């Protein structure tokens, strides 16, 4: 049986983050190049779990401009002689346009877990349903872990009180 399960990932320009659900904690692997650092967010220390949808203005600008560049090259070469250039430009323009439209319309869902000392962020570009399921799973697991911790602390406190109040044993 697996000790930890991959929940989600988040990728930047130079580093990637992979978030796993282990038994009593969320493990976050921050990988830069091929070296990684592992940290944990304990479930019984989770303060907030959030789900939000973001659209990156920088991404939309860059992809939008690239799409326009290829689109204008299609328009300028739209003739019998320039058909190969048109096909070549269309091979780039169509996917970029689709990527731009998808991101502008649907954005990227982010699930963030805030712990006492660190946090974990996952991004879901395509599977919005998985983002919501992950949000609810983390919420429920954190609640369960914290209830168990509260029960354990209460039991320990009772034992400590009983130990103090217990009459001293006869020599």
């Amino acid at each position: 049986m697996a000790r930890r399960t991959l929940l989600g990932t988040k990728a930047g320009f130079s580093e990637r983050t992979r978030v796993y659900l282990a038994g009593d904690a969320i493990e976050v692997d921050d990988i830069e190049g091929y070296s990684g650092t592992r940290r944990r967010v304990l479930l019984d220390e989770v303060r907030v779990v959030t789900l939000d949808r973001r659209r990156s203005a920088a991404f939309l600008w860059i992809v939008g401009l690239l799409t326009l560049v290829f689109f204008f090259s299609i328009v300028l070469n739209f003739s019998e002689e320039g058909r190969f250039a048109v096909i070549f430009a269309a091979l780039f323009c169509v996917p970029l346009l689709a990527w731009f439209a998808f991101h502008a319309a649907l954005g990227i869902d982010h699930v963030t877990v805030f712990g006492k000392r660190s946090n974990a962020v996952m991004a879901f570009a395509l599977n919005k349903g998985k983002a919501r399921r992950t949000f609810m799973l983390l919420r429920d697991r954190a609640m369960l872990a914290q209830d168990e911790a509260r029960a354990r602390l209460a039991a320990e406190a009772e034992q400590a009180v009983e130990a103090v109040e217990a009459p001293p044993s006869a020599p």
Partner: protein
Amino acid sequence: MQPAQLSASSACLECGLNFEAAVLSPPVRPAPRQLQHSQGQVRCARHARNAAVASCERCGAFMCGLCRIDADGKSICAACFERLRAAGELESASTRFRSFRTLGLHLGILGIPLMAGGILLGPASIIATVRGMRQDSKEGTAGETFSAVLALILGTVSTVGGIVVCLAFAGALGKK
């Protein structure tokens, strides 16, 4: 069971971003009560007022409940924990690792356009991917099968492609 406070949808006051939040109430752990040292009891080496509850399995120093750290099945003091962690000898405290599966995937991808170098890149990709799979198996990681299988396929393709390119080159040289 205390339910988490849920908000259907809130807007950030700073940036206006809409979000849903589940606010939880983590339990507050009380500070650990230490046994005060009394006549006849052994004192902690670092906290003279506290009674020792154990001795460090590495250096033998007496330690109270504050100093005692249980790691990898051993009871050690804070100083020994720090030394062992810095030396990388405590598996439970190690936080750095190498991502072999990612390395294997990147080598496999690189071996496709550089088919002539596939005879080296392909086997390197396969070796790194297998090592990454063993690492995942040891850590008990699930959910990473797709990237490992993809890396193995790419490594195999670039290996075969590299062999074909080398044979073709050798054949061309032979004809000359």
